[in-house]
């Protein structure tokens, strides 16, 4: 008869595997540092899982990781990832893991050449009956492209050595089906960070998570709150980490976890190729988003950025562009300003409009030859290939330190200004004659730590509408 083991409860981080830059060798010191960092908050460790880039590790390397983890774990259980596409190799890995002192082997459903039901059963059966080590089955259809069939799991759960199943699908209907059929015989662990709370509430025994090494104490708090029935408090915590969990699950995996750890001062090096540290699955934009979320969680200190809206008289706010109050008067240029929103969502739009043949036309052209570092002027669009008219440049007044800040300007702010211009055109606030004969430059001031794109859009729209009303008041 299968027996549940008492220790398979709580949080097990799926550790990343640190590599040395260039040589791609395993960085053992970094691995030890990582384990010491997480150990106080976890119930055990998982080596060479999906987050640990197991497909890129040799058999010797995987065993070495298990040995280090056992040395460092201070008696806490170590679950060794023993995933392979062939049964023979998975068996070898499981023998190695047992010899190195692992408490269990985590064995992924065979991938690439995917078997059918019989092949799945045979794979796990051979390992479970050959190696003297408890086995945890591992369902991750995002990588394997197939679910472990539930009827197969039903039969595997009867094998004495099979103690659990890690479900990373994120598919709660599948998780609930497993709990229904085998929950009395083996422990089900959830491996998808985004649905950890609902899975815990549904009855899973524990968590094997990529983010378990980034915010383990939050996961422990969630586990405790669920056990105490304090679901409302648990929901608040899960929501605080929802975006990061989504990024780790869907937008970069172990690469994103390494990026987060590095920001927190734990440099785990690059991933092995062909994965890229950034620019592959983890976009630069997402990397910037990780930093922001870690700031929100208090994992890293936010950089203090001075910020002030331009407050000089309106006609003097375009001096930097080479447009003096005298030139505004002489060229018959229109100016307008608007401000909306509070705190981080505050937006100020100062805009200037006028004929293409005036000084403004030349300034417009000049701005497109002068990429100010962090303050690039961009043509205002409703969406790509849908430029607003009159042609409008949007220019941030505060330098953008990173892609996320740039996205706040060139995303929500720009699309709000674009919409305000088209709306003003449609109601006749901007005369149709201006469409071909004039250009607009809009200066946008947005707080560098703005977070809420939706609020920002609303502020920017209101500010732009005010500015347009003021600038074009005389035109109608």
């Amino acid at each position, binding site marked *: 008869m299968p027996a549940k083991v008492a220790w398979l409860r709580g949080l097990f981080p799926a550790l990343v595997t640190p590599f040395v830059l260039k040589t791609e060798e395993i960085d053992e010191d970094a691995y030890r540092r990582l384990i010491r960092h997480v150990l106080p908050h976890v119930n055990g460790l998982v080596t060479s899982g999906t987050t640990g880039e197991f497909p890129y590790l040799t058999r010797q390397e995987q065993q070495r990781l298990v040995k280090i983890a056992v040395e460092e774990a201070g008696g806490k259980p170590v679950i060794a990832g023993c995933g392979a596409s062939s049964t023979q190799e998975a068996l070898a890995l499981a023998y190695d893991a047992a010899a190195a002192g692992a408490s269990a082997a985590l064995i992924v459903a065979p991938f690439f050449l995917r078997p059918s039901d019989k092949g799945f059963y045979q794979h796990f059966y051979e390992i479970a009956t050959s190696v003297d080590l408890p086995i945890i089955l591992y369902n991750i259809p995002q990588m394997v492209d197939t679910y472990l069939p539930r009827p197969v799991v039903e039969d595997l759960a009867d094998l004495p050595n099979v103690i659990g199943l890690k479900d990373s699908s994120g598919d709660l209907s599948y998780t609930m089906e497993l709990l229904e059929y085998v929950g009395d015989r083996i422990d089900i662990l959830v491996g998808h960070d985004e649905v950890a709370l609902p899975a815990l509430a549904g009855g899973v025994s524990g968590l094997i998570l990529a983010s378990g090494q980034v915010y383990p104490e939050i996961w422990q708090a969630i586990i405790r709150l669920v056990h105490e029935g304090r679901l409302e408090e648990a929901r608040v915590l899960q929501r605080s980490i929802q975006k990061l969990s989504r990024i780790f699950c869907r937008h970069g995996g172990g690469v994103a976890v390494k990026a987060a750890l590095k920001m927190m001062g734990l440099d785990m090096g690059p991933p092995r190729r062909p994965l890229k540290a950034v*620019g592959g699955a983890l*976009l*630069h934009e997402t990397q910037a988003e990780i930093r922001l979320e870690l700031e929100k969680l208090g994992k890293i200190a936010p950089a203090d950025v001075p910020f002030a809206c331009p407050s000089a008289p309106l006609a003097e706010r375009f001096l930097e562009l080479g447009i003096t109050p005298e030139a505004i008067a002489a060229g018959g240029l229109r100016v307008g300003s608007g401000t909306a929103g509070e705190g981080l969502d505050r937006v100020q739009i100062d805009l200037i409009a006028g004929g293409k043949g005036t000084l403004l*036309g030349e300034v417009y052209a000049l701005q497109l030859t002068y990429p100010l570092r962090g303050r690039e002027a961009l043509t205002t669009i*409703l969406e790509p*290939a*849908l430029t607003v008219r009159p042609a409008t440049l949007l220019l941030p007044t505060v330098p953008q330190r990173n892609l996320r800040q740039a996205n706040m300007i060139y995303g929500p702010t720009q699309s709000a200004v674009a919409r305000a211009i088209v709306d003003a055109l*449609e109601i006749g606030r901007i005369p149709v004659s201006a469409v071909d004969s004039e250009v607009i430059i809009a200066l946008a001031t947005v707080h560098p730590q703005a977070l809420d794109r939706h609020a920002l859009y609303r502020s920017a729209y209101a500010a732009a509408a005010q500015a347009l009303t003021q600038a074009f008041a005389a035109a109608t």
Partner: protein
Amino acid sequence: MGYKVEWFKGIFPALVTPFTRSGAVDEQAYRQLIRFVLPHVNGVVSCGTTGEFSSLTLDERKRVTEICLDEVAGRVPVVVGTGCKSTRETLILTRWARDAGADAALVVAPYFLKPTFNEVYDHFRAVDEIGLPLVLYNIPQCAGTHFRWWTAEGMALDFDHVIGIKDSSGDLPFMEALFEKVRGHVAIFVGHDEIVQAALAAGADGAILASANLIPDIWQQVYQATLRGELAIAQEWQQKVQKLVRIVVNCSSTQAVKEGLRMMGLEVGDSRHPIMPGDGFRREDYEELRVQLEMLGKIGKAPLVYEVGGRRIATEVFATPQTPRVVSDLTLRVGEGFAGPPFHELAHVDLLLGLKDGPVGRAIEKALAGWGEERGLRLISEHPRTLLVPTVTVRTPRQRVLLYEHAAAGINMAIQASIADGFLPEALLDQIALIVNAFVHPAASIARRITLNNYKATLQAIRKAIEGRPTLEELFNEKVSARHPFRYAP
């Protein structure tokens, strides 16, 4: 047992259903379209998927088919799309089509509520009993239900009135299974424009195609060449139209076909909502479809005059209804172009076109004399004088190469193409200058795509600057639904 009819072979366009600006069926435009395709086709299909049957009321479907039957007047067979979600409605419409004089009914697998194979079988059995020759229609991309060969085989051989199967799946192994099971018993038509030549060569009897609204003559040549056994000729034609039909198949085919027809001078309106311009059929697809139709000789040239400082410079350009006849103000014109995928290699070009002695020319000289070196500005053409400006700061050596070599090459290709196609006439080149802001993503890698995407984006930007696009109507129609890519959290 189904049977083969002599007339069901060759090229059948799946006619679009034209709408007026107020959204009513546009009878005159429909008749005009039928007259346009008729010389080149073996038959026509009314109210198919491309005919937006799912956006028409039953009464409208009847009316559209009546017009079609009247205009065709027996010169070629008319196959009528009569498929509906429910068996009940399908029966009503198919009986009507039988009595109205249709040659056959094209009946799509019931959709949305996905029936099982045996329910699909019984649906078609009920339709078959009406007695009108029946074409079974498999289009899993829309219906969500794939026949599978065993269902198709059973229906083709068990029923009395099946004359053919139209397969739009694009799934060649499935078609081969159909040939294996039912070829010789019923006709097999391909409905996926990207594999027409392959399917005909493999034994298909004909093709029912969205793109046959645009290029019925070319498809007829592919068909005839295949019949003659001249596969090389058929392959060459398929390859020539491959890009065009890929756009049609993958990008809201009905809107793509309608905008293509509009470019060719046949105004058939837009698709009914939720299909709309600039959505599935993206703006960059519009530009690419236009270029493809130009290359195939389907869009004619028209005169265009530039009025520059009292001089008139005459040229000829491939003209759509949006192309002006006269461009009188070249002080400063703005154009934007966008081309992708892939994501990292997409090109986004902001372009200024203006007089050398105007704001654009002066800005170029001032920039070069001042901060040209420091900001990485590069003159990449003298004729016309063209300044390349990096939109974002270049950070890596690789990004530098991709921008100054590969993106710049694409931009220059576009300038040369615009000189060749008349938008930038020789006589104008000494008087204008261009500022091109180009963007290379720091994670970009595929050099070839960067060149091609920048070529496409710049070509679009030049044309849009000259033609004054987007139009106000486009802005007003799409301001509510526009999707700005950076507005939302990644």
